[in-house]
C-alpha cells in the first residue's frame, strides 16, 4: 500500500513544481529549477532587500537563499507550505548577511546604496511621474527603508513579511516558526518602534 502523501502537499500551490525538482538534482538553473527560481526570485529578493537594507547584501542573501533551497530541496517534506520555508531561509540568510556586513559598510555608504537603488524609470515611458515627484518618492522610500533598518532583526522581519510581503498572521507564524501570540506581540512592538522611527518621516513628507 503506497505511503500517504503529507497533508500539506494537497493544498500547497507549489507542490507539483517542488516534487518535480525533487526528482532531479540541481546542477544548473534549467527546467523545473528555473521555473521555481522565476516564481520566487521577486519575493526572495524583496525580503532580502528590505531586511538587509541595501542591494549588495540583498544579492548575497538571495544567492545564499537559492543555494540552500536547491541543495536541500529533497529534505522538504511538506510539513509546512513551501513558501513559508522559502521565506524562513530568506529571512535567516538576510539577517546573517546583514550581521556580517555591518562591519564592512558604514552607515553612510549603506544610505547611499539605498538612494541609488530606488525606482529606476525609463524617461521614454510617458506614464512615469515627473522627475521631482519621483525623486521625492525615492527619497521617502529611502527614509522608510532607513526607519525599517533601525528596527531590531526580529521586528524588522515581522514588518517586512506582514506589510511588505502581505503575509497573514498564520503565514508569518508558519514562516518564522513562532506562535500566533508571538506574532501579535512582535507586531505590536514593531508598530511602537515605528512610531518613533517612521511617524516623524511621514509627517515631514506629507506636511512638507
Amino acid at each position: 500500500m503506497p505511503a500517504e502523501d503529507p497533508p500539506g502537499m494537497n493544498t500547497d500551490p507549489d507542490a507539483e513544481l517542488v516534487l518535480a525538482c525533487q526528482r532531479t538534482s540541481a546542477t544548473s538553473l534549467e527546467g523545473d529549477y528555473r521555473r521555481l527560481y522565476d516564481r520566487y526570485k521577486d519575493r526572495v529578493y524583496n525580503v532580502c532587500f528590505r531586511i538587509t537594507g541595501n542591494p549588495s547584501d540583498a544579492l548575497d542573501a538571495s544567492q545564499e537563499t537559492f543555494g540552500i533551497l536547491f541543495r536541500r530541496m529533497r529534505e522538504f517534506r511538506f510539513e509546512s507550505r513551501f513558501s513559508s520555508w522559502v521565506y524562513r531561509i530568506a529571512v535567516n540568510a538576510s539577517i546573517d548577511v546583514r550581521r556580517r556586513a555591518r562591519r564592512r559598510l558604514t552607515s553612510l555608504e549603506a544610505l547611499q546604496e539605498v538612494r541609488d537603488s530606488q525606482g529606476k524609470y525609463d524617461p521614454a515611458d510617458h506614464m512615469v511621474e515627473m522627475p521631482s515627484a519621483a525623486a521625492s518618492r525615492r527619497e521617502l522610500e529611502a527614509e522608510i527603508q532607513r526607519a525599517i533598518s533601525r528596527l531590531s532583526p526580529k521586528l524588522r522581519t515581522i514588518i517586512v513579511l506582514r506589510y511588505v510581503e502581505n503575509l497573514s498572521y498564520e503565514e508569518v507564524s508558519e514562516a518564522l516558526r513562532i506562535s500566533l501570540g508571538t506574532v501579535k506581540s512582535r507586531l505590536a512592538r514593531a508598530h511602537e518602534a515605528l512610531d518613533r522611527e517612521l511617524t516623524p518621516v511621514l509627517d515631514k513628507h506629507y506636511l512638507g
Partner: protein
Amino acid sequence: MKDDCQKHRDQWLHAPAWSEHEVVCADCAAWTRVRVQHVAALSALTRPEVPEELALRVQAELAGDRGRRLERALTSLTRPGAPAELEERVVELFGQRASEGDATRGEQHAPALGALDVHAAPPVLERLLNEELAAAADYRVKRFSSSLERLSAPDALEQRLQLGVRRRALARLVLAPLATLAAATLVVWLLVRRGAEHEYPFLVVRATAADRLDPLVRPLAEILGGVPPGEAR
C-alpha cells in the same frame, strides 16, 4: 488600558478594518490613524528590480562554484573587539593620560603607535629554537616548572610547629628532672643493697697489747690511743 481598547487594537493588527470603537474612543482613533499610515507607507514600497546577476550567481553555485560561499563563510568569522584595557595600556606606554577628548587622544596615539617599528627576529632566536627542538622534553620541564606557582605555607603548619615546640619544652621541664631523680634513686638503691649483702671490707681486731697489732698499724693505734710511741698499753 481598557479591555475594549486592547481588543480593538489587537483585532486591527490582525485584520485591519474600521470599528465602531473608534467613534467612542479618541485615543484608539488616533492610534488607528497612525497605524494606517505605517501600513500604507510600507505596503507602497516599490518592489526592487531583481538584478540579472542573481541568476548568474545561482547558476554558478549550482554548477559547483563554492568560492563566494567560502568567502562569505570566512568573512562571517567574528572579530573580537579590542578590550578597553588595551587603550589604558597604550596610554601608559607612552606616558600620557587619557584625559583629552577622543579626537585629541587619537592624534596623540597615532604617531606613537606608528613609531612602533616592526623588528626583525634576532639571529640568536634560531639557535635557541634549534636547541629546544633537539631536547624538547627538557625545555618543556624547565619552562613549565619555572612557571609553577609558589604556594605559601598554610596556617595549619605554623600551628603544628608551635605545638611541637611546646611539647618539647614540656618534656625538658618535667621529664628530665624525673629521669635524673630516677637515676639517682637507682644508684642509691644499688649502693644500699650492696652494703647489706657484703661484709665490711675491714677486720675488727681487739688487741690487748700493742705488740699484738700488725706492725703496719701499730704506730696509728699508738697515736689514736694517746700512747707515746714505743710504749705499749
